[in-house]
């Protein structure tokens, strides 16, 4: 009886699933993409199938001059240009080029007489057939073809007193001109397109911000505007910030203090953090969850100081201090990858952050050198060394799929295979690493190489901006003692806290679009 009932239930469940699957499988039109090429822009139709977005293949192949043939016998699509052929399986997310398999998130989907392909098929398979780089940018709905210049542009407006500051972050650095035309400022970038987030919104002397193609930003000015001045400050090796201060008529000539002013020889007073906390409080939080990863644990002690300080203990101690101040003062949800002395595999640490939809991932470590005089803190973000080969051997690793999240739902990591999820957050990770370096430098001694990139395993699969912080060298006698005491650990925690506050300010303007 029971088994018959169970069988019936299973059958019903299968039928329901099948019906749901069928419904989910029919493509629905989505907002189109624009392909940006050296010759201009062309529309590329997009559709949603299930949870995933697809692009219309023939729109892309027409632009790229790639011919498509359906091989009914092989149940595959053949993409050819010149002597290069890429075969896309119609049964599973697989492509083959020159005998090499590439794992993809999904096979092509038929839509009437046309084919739809997932963004990673464009970036990783079609690009090989076309012999050019194809970069699919979802937030700005662009397909960047080849080496055209399409910088990522993030615009933020802060009204402070009577003046208003417009900050435009540019990755990579891009030259521009700012001119005033009647009641608007025209910012023309030396680029082929803009990957812009957070245009619009009225604040202070700004009525709205809009973009016009190919690469111009219009700042529409509110009544009361009298003058402006602009300056560029470097953010890190590859990005810069254009700061435009808008001043009203009469008074208010003092622009708001610059949080990213070029660093003077002596550290500036620690004013920004306090200012920005006030600013943050008035806006929607864009930073909700942070995962802090105390390095090592359990049998894996990490490195060990001469005085007996263990890396695994120091990392957990600082992680707890940082968690307490973030939760208490900012109201951010903070999770630790371990809150006790136990071994947690590296992959589990990143998946915990992914499953909890963390907005930031910070791995804490203490360093060691064979030369006992090496000292100072270092901040790392991922380097993609070796990932070129990984892309070729992806067939062996699990393909990118939606990852189940705790508490239901899923988090999509559809564009890039699991162990490369960090690749698309690198620019943000670099910015966050820069902020940490600046804040730590005010409080503790930094290494001669304070910001670096390395192929760290724990960062590779984090699907959010992620950094690894080496707080000090346990192999240095004095630093070993420092790490054993309270004061140094508090200074590190405070530096990280202030860097997080500054990063949150950066995220505030485009709250909906910054989420990966």
């Amino acid at each position, binding site marked *: 009886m029971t088994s018959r009932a169970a069988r019936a239930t299973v059958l019903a469940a299968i039928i329901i699933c099948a019906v749901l699957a069928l419904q989910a499988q029919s493509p629905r039109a989505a907002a189109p993409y624009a392909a940006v090429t050296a010759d201009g822009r062309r529309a590329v139709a997009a559709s949603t199938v299930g949870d995933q977005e697809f692009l219309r293949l023939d729109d892309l192949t027409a632009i790229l001059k790639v011919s498509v043939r359906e091989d009914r*016998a*092989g*149940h*595959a699509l053949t993409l050819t240009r010149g002597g290069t052929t890429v*075969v896309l*399986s119609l*049964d*599973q997310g*697989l492509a*083959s080029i*020159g*005998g*090499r*398999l590439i794992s993809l998130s999904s096979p092509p989907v038929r839509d009437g007489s046309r084919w739809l392909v997932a963004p990673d098929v464009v970036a990783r398979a079609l690009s090989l057939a076309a012999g050019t780089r194809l970069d699919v940018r979802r937030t700005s709905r662009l397909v960047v073809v080849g080496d055209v210049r399409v910088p990522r542009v993030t615009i933020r407006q802060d009204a402070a007193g009577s003046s208003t500051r417009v900050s435009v972050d540019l990755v990579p650095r891009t030259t521009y001109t700012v001119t005033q035309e009647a009641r608007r400022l025209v910012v023309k970038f030396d680029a082929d397109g803009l990957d812009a987030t957070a245009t619009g919104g009225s604040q202070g002397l700004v009525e709205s911000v809009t973009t016009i193609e190919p690469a111009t930003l219009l700042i529409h000015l509110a009544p009361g505007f009298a003058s402006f001045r602009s300056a560029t400050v470097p953010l890190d090796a590859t990005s810069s910030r254009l700061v435009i201060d808008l001043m009203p008529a009469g008074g208010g000539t003092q622009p708001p203090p610059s949080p990213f002013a070029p660093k003077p020889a002596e550290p500036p007073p620690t004013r920004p953090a306090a200012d920005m906390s006030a600013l943050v409080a008035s806006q929607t939080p864009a930073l909700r969850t942070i995962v802090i990863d105390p*390095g*090592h644990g359990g049998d*894996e*002690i*990490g*490195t*060990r100081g001469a005085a007996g300080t263990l*890396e695994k203990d120091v990392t957990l101690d600082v992680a707890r201090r940082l968690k307490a101040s973030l939760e208490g003062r900012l109201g951010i949800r903070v999770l630790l990858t371990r809150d006790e002395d136990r071994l947690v595999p*590296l992959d589990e640490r990143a998946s915990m952050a992914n499953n909890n939809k963390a907005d930031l991932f910070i791995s804490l*470590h*203490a*360093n*060691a*050198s*064979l*030369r006992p*005089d*090496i000292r100072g803190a*270092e901040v*790392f973000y991922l*380097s993609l*060394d*070796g*990932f*070129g*080969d*990984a892309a*070729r*051997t992806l067939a062996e690793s699990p393909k990118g799929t939606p990852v189940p999240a705790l508490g239901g739902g899923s988090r999509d990591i559809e564009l890039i295979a699991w*162990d490369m999820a960090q690749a698309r957050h690198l620019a943000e990770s670099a910015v966050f690493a820069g902020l940490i370096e600046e804040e730590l430098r005010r409080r503790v001694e930094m*290494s*001669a*190489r304070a910001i*670096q*990139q*390395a*192929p*760290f*395993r*724990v960062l*590779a699969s984090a699907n959010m901006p992620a950094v*690894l912080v*080496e707080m000090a*060298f*346990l*192999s240095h006698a004095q630093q070993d003692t420092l790490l054993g005491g309270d004061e140094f650990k508090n200074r590190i925690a405070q530096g990280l806290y202030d860097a997080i506050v500054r990063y949150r300010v950066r995220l505030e303007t485009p709250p909906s679009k910054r989420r990966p």
Partner: protein
Amino acid sequence: MAITSRFVALTLVAAVSTGVGTWVAVRYVVRPQPPRPSAASAAAQAGSAETRRIKAALYYIAADGLRLQAAQRDVAYADGTPDQAKRILEALLGPPPPGMLSAIPPGTALRGVYLAEGGAAYVDFTAALQTNHPGGSLSEILTVYAIVSSVTANLPAVTAVQILIDGHEADTLAGHVDLRRPLPPSAPWTEKGPS
């Protein structure tokens, strides 16, 4: 299903032909060449087969402790890329030149070197490389890239190196650097020494 297997079969045929091509290339093109003079100026010296030696750039921890520095050292000559890589790594496992530090933990021995298509070398060490490692990401980075750079700088046929431990793939040496794939040399961690 039959269709899928046909797709896979087609792919396999292509893969096999690529593999054969690579084997031919390795067997008849790469192998007969003695290590060529490279950017690191490895050059065969005169002498009989047993005593022939080459100059190779081996990487050690630089005086500033923050990066690797190349030292030109005599290494036994061997026929073929895998054997020459072996000789180079064995030399790297030996004592460092005066004033420099070895980035390789004491007690480490080399088990073997294998060459794969696409310029990747698999270098297999005993577990001491992991168990005797002092830890700390800087030390680990320097250990990894001392191995990678010493091989790639002297053997133009090798462009990336994957470290194995006791014949198996390793996650990391000490909890930081991802060893799941062959690593190319990384310029920020190495500097050319005086030659």
